[in-house]
Each structure stands twice: as structure tokens, then as C-alpha cells.
């Protein structure tokens, strides 16, 4: 993995709570995320994984507790992070224009952003689809385009919210390979999944969420060898073959 000068990391949550109508979806979560490792947030549906990611990415504000970046560019966090959603939202324009859109917002000149967008598309294997209307791509291709759209920004942190939940195995493999490549290029990966196999393949460390609480955090091997909490053990044993 390539080193890069820190901009935002580490990220510190201190008793961060997100409540909707008084009901906590995320309940007093505290942790520090450092650069380097691939952190996978694991948990059942409704455990609060997506809310946790949106909180970290700045799409939600905590209703109690705090979320803050400690790096030198903490005052302008948007520029150094990106997010890939479960369902990619493609703009009604070409694939290349979708990938270049974020660079346009960053004020990068047209020639350079097209060159960088083409390079990003080539890295995810979609160079041949650059001119196609993005919305007419298959679900898997759209998710690869969404990865290119995030990667082209060269974020310090990339959040991925169940990026393969609606994809077939081939597309899932492609997405996982690209997430690995993005990590190798120096980006911190924070990803949610409810799929144990994927967590094993992608993660360096596991953060296990249960009903809004962060109840276990461990290296991937230790977590799967012997989870410390009964909830995590039940979750692992409940996995279908």
C-alpha cells in the first residue's frame, strides 16, 4: 500500500448517537479509525451500518456525541473522501461525464478531468463504455462506474455501503478486486456488509454492530476464529450455507 500525506485521518467518534424521533438508530458509538487498514462494518439488517457510514461521511449529523476528523484538512473534509452507495445513482449523461462530474465540482480544467476520468474508467475495466449513457448500463457496470467516479477523486477515505448487495457473483468479485486496488493505491477503506464471506475477503479489521451499538472490534482472523460476544457468535453461526 502506497503512503500518502494525511489530510483528514484519523476519524474519532465519541459517544456518537443518531436518533430518529427519539429512537436511537446508532447508540453511543465510540471509535478511532486510522489510516491504512480496511475496516469492515459487519452486522444484521437494521443494525445501523448505513447510518454509521453516512454519519462518518458527513451526510448525517450526530444527534448526540461527536464525530470529528483530526487531520490537518479537517476543516474541509468533503474534498478528501468519497462514498459508493448500495444503489449507484448515475446522472443522465455519458459514463465518462458521470466520472468527470466530481472533478468538475473540484474546479479541474476540462482536458485534465477527461484524461483522469478516462484513466479511472480504464482501471475499472469500463474504458469501452465511456461514451454510453450511464443509465443504460447493467447494475454491475453502473457500480463499477460509481467506483471509478469515487476513485478518480483520489480520496484519502472511501466509504462503501453494501456495494455488492444487489450484484451477481461475477460483478461482486469485480467490485471486491477494485476495492482492493483502491486500497493498494493508498486509500483508507471503510465498508459495510452483512455477507461474512465478503467480510473475510475484504477486511483487515471487523467492527461488529448490533442494534445500533458497536459491541466488538477485532482483526479479521481473530474475529472469525472466536468472536468475543454472543451476538457476534450468533450472527456468524446463523449464516446460511
Amino acid at each position, binding site marked *: 500500500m502506497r503512503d500518502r500525506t494525511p489530510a483528514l485521518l484519523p476519524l474519532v467518534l465519541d459517544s456518537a448517537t443518531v436518533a430518529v424521533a427519539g429512537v436511537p438508530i446508532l447508540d453511543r458509538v465510540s471509535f478511532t479509525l486510522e489510516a491504512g487498514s480496511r475496516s469492515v462494518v459487519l452486522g444484521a439488517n437494521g443494525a445501523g451500518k448505513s447510518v454509521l457510514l*453516512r454519519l462518518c*461521511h458527513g*451526510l448525517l449529523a450526530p444527534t448526540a456525541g461527536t464525530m470529528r476528523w483530526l487531520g490537518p484538512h479537517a476543516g474541509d473534509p*468533503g*474534498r478528501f473522501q*468519497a*462514498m459508493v*452507495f448500495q444503489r449507484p*445513482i*448515475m*446522472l*443522465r*449523461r455519458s459514463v465518462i461525464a458521470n466520472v468527470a*462530474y*466530481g472533478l468538475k*465540482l*473540484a474546479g479541474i480544467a476540462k482536458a485534465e478531468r477527461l484524461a483522469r476520468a478516462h484513466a479511472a474508467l480504464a482501471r475499472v475495466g469500463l474504458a469501452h463504455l465511456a461514451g454510453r*449513457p*450511464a*443509465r*443504460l448500463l447493467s447494475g454491475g457496470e453502473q457500480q463499477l462506474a460509481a467506483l471509478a*467516479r469515487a476513485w478518480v477523486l483520489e480520496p484519502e477515505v472511501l466509504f462503501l455501503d453494501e456495494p455488492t448487495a444487489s450484484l451477481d457473483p461475477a460483478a461482486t468479485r469485480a467490485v471486491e478486486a477494485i476495492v482492493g486496488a483502491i486500497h493498494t493505491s493508498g486509500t483508507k477503506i471503510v465498508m459495510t456488509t452483512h455477507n461474512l464471506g465478503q467480510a473475510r475477503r475484504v477486511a483487515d479489521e471487523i467492527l461488529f454492530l448490533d442494534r445500533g451499538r458497536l459491541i466488538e472490534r477485532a482483526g479479521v482472523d481473530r474475529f472469525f476464529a472466536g468472536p468475543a460476544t454472543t451476538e457476534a457468535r450468533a450472527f456468524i453461526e446463523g449464516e446460511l450455507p
Partner: protein
Amino acid sequence: MNTDFFAACAAAFRLIVEADAGLIAIVGLSLIVSVAAVLIATAIALPLGAVVALARFRGRHGAIVLLNALMGLPPVVVGLAVYLLLSRAGPLGEFGLLFTPGAMVIAQAILVVPIVAALARQTIADAWREYEEQLRSLGAPPRLAVWTLLWDTRFSLVTAVLAGFGRAAAEVGAVMIVGGNIDGVTRVMTTAIALETSKGDLPLALGLGLVLVVLVLAVNAAAYSLREAAHRRFG
């Protein structure tokens, strides 16, 4: 009676095929008035629809209900209101607009604004629900996000504008009151049809009616094929 009807139809077709000068003048004025009204209304209604769709302000829900209700604004009431505004004793009487095509443009624009604004608001609100997180994640500032939404929904917005045109071209009450149906000055298709029918000149009334129906059909066909083509092209 039947022979009357068919005779009138035949005469109506003759007027259309021979491009009768009186008929052409009336159709031309109708188009000029309604197109001008729709252009002015669109310039007001699209920003209005976008603001009501995206801005968070007190009374927003009331504004949405009002906008939707105003889609059914009775043309005669709008005609009456504009008449009072533009009449010699009214607050805008000094401009001398009453019984001119300008007055008709104003009245039709007032009728069209709520239609285009309400349809645009719905379109933009739906798109925002879909795009919001992605655009915020990419760091789009509000002004640019609005522009991206308008651009991505442009074909649906054109459909909204064409719906407004259909309303403008087909209404009779407002233009009758503020235009006065003066021959050669403010006589448009709908007012001419009403007058000629009561006078008993059925061929002209029927001919104009046919042109009006074909026009409305053509506008709707254009709106439909535009959306279909856009869907195939952009998804």
C-alpha cells in the same frame, strides 16, 4: 340535421385546405398569444417549482397545496381579475392593455404558471429524493445541484411546459374577457369558435375546432415521443 353537419364539415375542410385568410389569421394570433404566454410563464414557473421543491421554508406545505389547487384555476375568474387590473380605472389601466393581445398573454400566463410550476415541482422533488445523497457526497454546492437536477429532468420539464401550452391554447374564458374577441385584433381560435357557433357559421367554427384539436394532439404526440426518445437515449 345530418346533411347540415356533413355540409359544415365539408366546408370546414375546404377552409383548411384552401388556407382561408381569415382562418389563418385567427390560428396565427392564437399561436402567438399562447406561445408568448407559455414562454413568460415558464420563465417564472421553473424557478418557482424548483424553489418550492428544494427550499425548506415555513408554509412550504401550504405552498404545495396552493400550487396544485391553482392548476384548476377557472379561466373566467382569471379573466375577470386581469380585466379589473387592466381596465381604465384599474391599477394597471394607464398602460392601455385591455382588449389587446398583450392582455391575453398576461391572462394565459397566469393560467399556465401554476400548471408548469406544480408539475416541475413534482419532477424536481422526485429527482432530488433520488440524487440528494449522491450529489452531496460528490460535494455539489446547492446552486450547482439545482442546475444538475434541472438538466437531468429536462425532458420531463419540457412535457410540463407542453401541458401548459395545451391549457393556454384551449381555454376560452380568460381571453374572451380581456381580449374582447375583436375581429382581426384579439380574435383567437377558441373565442372565434364560440362566436361563430352562436352566429350559426358552423363551417368556420368546425374548421377552427379541427385545427385546435389537431394542434393539441400534435403537442401531446411531441411530448410523448420526446420522453420516449429521451428514455431510450439516456435511460
